[in-house]
């Protein structure tokens, strides 16, 4: 951290204080820093003496009897923790990787060790790629599951395109990692070779000088390599966040907004959906909040936290209201069927086509060549019609939608009265087929 950013951060943390008070503090601190620099310290070191800026700001605010918790911790700590966490883990990962690399290549220019290093690196690369592959396979499976819904030629095309996309992405990530692992290796061997050539030509005095310089250089390079690795790992993590969180969340939010519009429509129609509306709004707020938090990781901005609490409160109220609404809905069971008896005379082998469950009842009292079919159905939904020719009898329902009756309207109407029925029964057709054994034997029942 340099002086400028130190002062900027301090100013921000102390913004609750009066301006001249803040300026007074800043002036004193920057004097201290200047004085230290004059006495031979670097700017970095001088600032390090003040410790963590947030800690320092807290202490200063305490001197004014102000509780620093609400001011400094509030958003910077809770939300920036995620960013810090990513930063830390990325640094740790890169430290681990670069330490490993350094350990391996302590003695260079020897082919055997170089080969060993390469093998170990390749193993590391393979392991990393395998682990990184898992979410990609998930993505691939998810895509296939979605596209399988599509019709025949389209689903194949979509699946292939999707598969290609995921694979390309996966390979790009793998290549990036491989590049990160091997790049410094290639560079180092080249540079060290050139350095050794140079030093051998120079006199002893100069040799000492150049050695110290190269040492410094290699130190610097090490730092550069580390920060390079950190940035690569950070970028990969960010890409992951984008792909697996940010991107899906946008779709979720769009879906939620559509749902809200639909619910508002039904509210206008007169169905009591206030609870669900509240839940949907709260979910939209919460997802937008998560979206902002994740997005701010990219832009290093802070997020205000209060929408989160608003979302949670709305969700709780919405859940309660929904529960209350559903408790009041009356479940009506449809179990009264209408019955229709159809009689047919059959004199030769005949196909009887019908839709639904059927049961054959042998009744020897019935005359030969006579069958009677009893249909149990719900006549609000459909009418039973028959059609027959010489060797075929068909019994089928005619749905009454054309006549103005509509299942959808029925459900809406019922919901307005806080009622709900087991509508799936409306589509049930049950048959009992009566006839003597001889007659039944010549008919062939086709249940379609």
């Amino acid at each position, binding site marked *: 951290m340099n002086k400028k950013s130190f002062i900027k951060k301090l100013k921000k943390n102390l913004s609750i204080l009066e301006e001249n008070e803040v300026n007074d503090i800043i002036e004193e601190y920057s004097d*201290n820093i200047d004085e230290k620099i004059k006495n031979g310290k670097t700017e970095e070191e001088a600032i390090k003496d003040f410790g963590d800026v947030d800690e*320092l700001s807290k202490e200063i605010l305490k001197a004014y009897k102000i509780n620093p918790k609400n001011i400094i911790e509030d958003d910077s700590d809770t939300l920036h923790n995620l960013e810090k966490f990513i930063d830390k883990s990325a640094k740790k990962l890169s430290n681990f990787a670069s330490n490993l690399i350094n350990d391996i290549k302590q003695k260079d220019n020897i082919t055997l060790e170089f080969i060993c290093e390469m093998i170990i690196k390749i193993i590391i690369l393979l392991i990393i790629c395998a682990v990184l592959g898992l979410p990609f396979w998930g993505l691939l499976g998810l895509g296939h599951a979605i596209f399988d819904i599509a019709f025949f030629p389209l689903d194949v095309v979509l699946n292939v395109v999707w598969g290609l996309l995921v694979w390309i992405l996966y390979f790009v990530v793998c290549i990036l990692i491989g590049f990160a692992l091997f790049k410094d290796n290639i560079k180092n061997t080249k540079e060290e070779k050139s350095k050794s050539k140079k030093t051998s030509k120079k006199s002893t005095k100069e040799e000492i000088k150049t050695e110290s310089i190269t040492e410094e250089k290699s130190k610097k390079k090490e730092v550069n390599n580390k920060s390079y690795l950190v940035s690569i790992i950070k970028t990969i993590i960010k890409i992951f966040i984008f792909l697996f969180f940010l991107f899906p969340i946008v779709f979720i939010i769009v879906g939620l907004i559509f749902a809200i519009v639909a619910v508002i429509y039904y509210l206008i129609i007169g169905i009591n959906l206030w609870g669900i509306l509240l839940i949907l709004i709260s979910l939209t707020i919460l997802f937008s909040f998560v979206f902002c938090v994740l997005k701010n990781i990219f832009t290093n901005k802070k997020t205000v936290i209060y929408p989160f609490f608003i979302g949670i409160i709305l969700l709780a109220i919405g859940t309660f209201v929904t529960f209350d609404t559903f408790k009041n809905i009356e479940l009506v069971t449809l179990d009264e069927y209408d019955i229709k008896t159809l009689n047919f005379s059959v004199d030769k082998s005949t196909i009887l086509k019908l839709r639904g469950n059927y049961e054959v009842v042998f009744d020897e009292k019935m005359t030969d060549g006579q069958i009677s079919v009893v249909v149990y159905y719900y006549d609000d939904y459909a009418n039973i019609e028959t059609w027959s020719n010489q060797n075929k009898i068909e019994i089928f329902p005619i749905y009454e939608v054309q006549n103005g009756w509509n299942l959808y309207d029925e459900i809406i109407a019922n919901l307005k009265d806080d009622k709900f029925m087991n509508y799936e029964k409306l589509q049930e057709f049950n048959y009992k087929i009566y006839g003597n054994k001889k007659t039944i034997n010549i008919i062939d029942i086709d249940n379609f």
Partner: protein
Amino acid sequence: MNTQFKKGVLELVVLLAVSKKDMYGYELVLEVSKFVDVNDGTIYPLLKRLTNDKYFETYLVDSTEGPARKYYKITVLGKQRVKELKKNWNDFVTSVNKFMKECMKGE
């Protein structure tokens, strides 16, 4: 030195240092860090607190190099505070020493 110890004693140390001679921030840091290992991030907020509590007052002195320096000067209230803290410290040290002696006897 233990940080908990340091925090407790630092107020006394800083008050004593300033009561001996008026000082500006950086001077004080140098003076105090001769005896106690402490960083600027602890000293400066403490100076602020002691000033806000009216134990110190400040005045500006033009310096030959750079901007004017803020000097800290002990107040009457501050002197009382020094007395009080000194007494607390001495009482504390004697009782701890006494206790240590007791314990040594038992060994």
